[in-house]
Structure formats: C-alpha cells, structure tokens
C-alpha cells in the first residue's frame, strides 16, 4: 500500500515568500499501474492525501497536475511531497513504546522488517526475470520467422517477376 501526502504553497510576490497555505489551488492526482491503466484519478485541494494498493508488480506512475489558472501570472508553486511505501514508514520509536520492547527486541524487529523487504524484492525480481525471458524469446522467434518470411517473399517476388516479364515479352514478340 502506498500513501502519498502533498502540500502546496503559492509564491506571493508581495511578500516575496511562500504563503503558508494556498486555498483555491487544486491538484489533480493521476496514478497508473504498470499496464498503463488508470487506477486513481481524482482532484484534491491544496493539501491532500491519496492512497492506493498495487495489485501488480512493476513501475507505477504518479502524476500531479495543478488545475489552477493562477499559474499563468508567472508564479511559483512549492509542493511538499511525502510518499510512503508499505512498511518503509515504520516508526521504531512508536513501535517500541507501543509494544514495550527492549532495545534488542526492537533491533530484531527491525531486522525482520529488513529481511521481509529483501524477500519481497527478490520475488519481484523473479517475476521480472520471467517476463524478460518471455520477451527475449518472443524477439528471437520474431527475428527467426522474419528471416524465413523475407527469404520466401524474395524468392516468390523474383520468380513472379521473371515469369510475368517473360510472358509479357513473349506477348510483345520480343523474345
């Protein structure tokens, strides 16, 4: 699960600094999964929070568009972006006080989280290798069949050309 939080601040030329909050500015969030399908498309206010859960492994695309027309006066917008992925957002101080762990237990918990992350990544790589192998084999097949097809087309075309021209010249009584 991925949680994204953003906060926008508009630059105010009068005070030459960024306003603490910029009402009226909306940000449109568009999230695509690895197959380029849109899994989230929503407009939030100047400060917003969006979450999504990835159902397939791969590169997800997160796009933020501002939908305000105040842009065109040549302004600047400061965007604070905070994206937390899965269990990376572990706050160990909080876990320690909530579960009342000793330092060693906390360290072991941290090691467990690390190992889990490594395992997840390795599973992902195994999936990737399988897809890569499929793609490479498909490319190999395409090149092979293309070579055969090219030979066939060349042979057929040459043969047809000669036959057609021969009959044409015979009809014209040149041969």
């Amino acid at each position: 699960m991925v949680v994204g939080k953003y906060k926008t601040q508009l630059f105010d030329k009068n005070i030459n600094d960024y306003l603490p909050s910029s009402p009226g500015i909306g940000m449109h969030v568009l999230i695509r999964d690895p197959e380029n399908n849109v899994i989230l498309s929503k407009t939030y206010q100047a400060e917003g929070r969006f979450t999504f859960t990835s159902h397939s492994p791969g590169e997800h695309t997160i796009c933020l568009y501002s939908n305000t027309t105040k842009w065109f006066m040549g302004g600047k917008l400061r965007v604070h972006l905070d994206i937390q992925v899965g269990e990376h957002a572990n706050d160990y101080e909080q876990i320690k006080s909530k579960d009342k762990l000793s330092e060693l237990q906390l360290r072991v918990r941290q090691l467990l989280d690390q190992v889990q992350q490594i395992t997840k990544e390795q599973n992902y790589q195994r999936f990737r290798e399988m897809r890569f192998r499929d793609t490479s084999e498909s490319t190999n097949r395409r090149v092979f069949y293309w070579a055969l097809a090219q030979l066939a087309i060349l042979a057929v075309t040459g043969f047809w050309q000669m036959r057609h021209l021969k009959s044409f010249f015979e009809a014209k009584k040149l041969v």
Partner: protein
Amino acid sequence: MMHLHLSWTLLVYLVIFSSRDSSCFASEFTFELPDNEKQCFYEVREKDEECLLEYQVVSGGKYDVDIQVRDPGNRVIHQDTKKQYDTFTWKTSASGAFTFCFSNEFSSFSHKVIFFGISCGDDPMLGGEDDDRPGAMTQMEANTLAIFESLKAVISYQTHFRLNEFTGRRVANGLHNRVLWWSVGEIIVLLSVGVGQVLLVRSFFSDRKNVGSSGPGGKVRIGV
C-alpha cells in the same frame, strides 16, 4: 518504484520518508526528465549532517545527465556533466533548503528517466535516551548490529540490481517492438518494389508501339 512526472515549474520539496526517524533521513525518487529541460528538487536539512546523494540514469539516450547541487546560500557545492552514475557525500554547512538540479539541456530528443536517492544522518540509535547501560554492547547487540549493517548493504545492492534490470528491460522491450515494425515495413517495401519494378518495365514497352521491333537505329532496352 515510484515514477513522478512534473508539469509546469513546480518546486518539489522532498519529504519522502523511507525511514521515519528524526535523526536519519532517506528518500529515493525516480522521475522523468524531458529533453532540453532542467528539473530541480529541494530538501531542507539541518546543519552539520553527513549527507549522501546517489543518482543513476536508468533510461534514455546515452544515459547521461548533468547535475548541480547548491547549498541554502545558492552556492554550487557540486557540479558534474554527463554522468550515468555517481555518488556525492558532503557535510551540510548550513541549515536550509539544498537544491539538486538535473539537466538534460544538452539533449534535444531523448527524455531520460533518472533515479536518485538522498540519505542524511546516522542510523537511528535505537534506545536513545532511556538506555541506562551506556558503554560497550553485549555480544548479542553487536551481532545484531552487524546483521543490520549487512542487510542494509543487501538492500542497497538490490536497489542497484533493480535499476539495472529496469534499464535492460527497457532496451529489450524497445528491441522487441522495433523488430516487429521493421519486419512489417520491410514486407511493404519489398512487395511494392517488386511490383513497381515490373510495372515500370512494362511501361517502357507499352507506350510506344514501335519500340517492340528491332529496326535499324532503334534502341531496345530490356530489363532494368
């Protein structure tokens, strides 16, 4: 892997946490840099922090990018051109917003996907203030710390492996598609040239009825 596309002139302040702790900070970011553009990211850090910046171009063109790092006083503390992968460590001399600018202005048609990661501060010292046993660690604690460091290295290797796999996969997919389009295109060209040649030769002999006879002074050209 997160992939963010920025539009207009947004100043993106990174508060991307991969570990939530006040004493250490780490964030990774993968973004797309269009051709002929420069994009900057900002991070607010305190003074006297050891920071490490790492970046890699994973897709696009000749896999190179220019980088410039500026401190809060807008002085350039690091600058490099056309690197595919590099790391840079520095100690923050002032607190404020540091600027990391990636530039693709030298390339006119290849947009690039760039991964970069910033990590500052030391690892969280678990326990901290309420540790009533200062001094040497027990054997167990030392071992777990060693395991922690090793696993950190493993995760770092995995990140690089994932980036390299992404690069390779992009190239393989591009090749896959290009083979298809090339085959289709060449079939069309072959057939049209083959038929066109015959039609052209026929047209040499069809327009003038007397070219067919080989009279004196007449020049007959057969074939191409």
